[in-house]
C-alpha cells in the first residue's frame, strides 16, 4: 500500500455546521490537489446518507467518509480536525449519533487497500500515546507530525 499521509491533506480548525458541510470543506483538500474528480464530494455526501461512517472509539469519535473508485484519481486519506464536534450517524447502527471530532476522508482507487487504511486509522486510536498526540495537535504542522508518525 502506498503512503497514506500527505501534507496537503492535513487540515485543522474546520468550522462546519453539519456533517455535509464538514464533508464539503474537507473534500476540497482532495479536489484542489487533484486526488478526486469533481463528482467526488457530492458522491460522498450521498453515500454518507445511506451508509454512515461515524465511529465512536475509545477516547475519540471520528468519521471516515468515502465513495466509489470511479470518482477518484489517486489514493489518499485526509486528516482533518474539526473546530467543534459535528454529528454523524454511527456506521452499522442507524439512529445512533456520533459527535465526530476528526474526519479521515478516504480517496480509494483500489478497494483492496481500503481495509488496510481503515485498520491503520482504527489501530492508531488503540494507542493512547497516539490518541493524545492527535488530541493535542493545535495546528497543521503538529497534526501532520502525529499523523506521519502513527499512521505513516
Amino acid at each position, binding site marked *: 500500500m502506498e503512503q497514506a499521509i500527505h501534507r496537503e491533506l492535513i487540515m485543522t480548525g474546520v468550522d462546519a455546521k453539519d456533517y455535509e458541510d464538514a464533508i464539503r470543506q474537507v473534500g476540497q483538500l482532495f479536489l484542489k490537489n487533484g486526488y478526486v474528480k469533481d463528482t467526488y464530494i457530492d458522491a460522498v455526501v450521498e453515500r454518507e446518507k445511506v451508509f454512515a461512517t461515524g465511529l465512536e472509539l475509545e477516547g475519540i469519535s471520528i468519521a471516515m467518509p468515502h465513495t466509489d473508485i470511479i470518482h477518484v484519481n489517486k489514493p489518499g486519506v485526509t486528516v482533518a480536525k474539526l473546530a467543534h464536534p459535528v454529528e454523524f450517524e454511527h*456506521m452499522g447502527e442507524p439512529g445512533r449519533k456520533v459527535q465526530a471530532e476528526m474526519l479521515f476522508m478516504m480517496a480509494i482507487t483500489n478497494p483492496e487497500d*481500503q481495509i488496510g487504511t481503515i485498520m491503520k486509522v482504527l489501530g492508531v486510536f488503540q494507542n493512547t500515546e497516539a490518541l493524545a498526540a492527535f488530541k493535542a495537535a493545535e495546528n497543521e504542522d503538529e497534526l501532520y507530525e502525529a499523523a506521519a508518525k502513527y499512521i505513516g
Partner: protein
Amino acid sequence: MVSQDFTVKNPTGIHARPATMLVQLCNGLPDQVMITTDKGKSVNPKNILSVLMGGMSKGTQIHIEVTGESEEDSLKLVMDLLESFTE
C-alpha cells in the same frame, strides 16, 4: 450450534458498506453469531468495530458459528449476505 466456512471474495473485504450490512443483519437475528478468521481473530458480527478490526480482507477464510433457536435460518441469512457482496 451450526457452522460453516467461507472465503471472502469481494475486493473491499468485510469493510465499510459490507461490514455495515453484516452488522445490521446480525443485530436483527435472535441467535448468537460468532466469526473466527484464519488469522485467529474472534469477531463479534453484531459490533461494527469488532468487524472492522477483524481484518477480513479478500481471500480471508472465516468460520461462522450460530447458536440459538433459529440457528439454521440465521446461518443461511448470514451466508446469503456474505455471498452477495461484490464491491
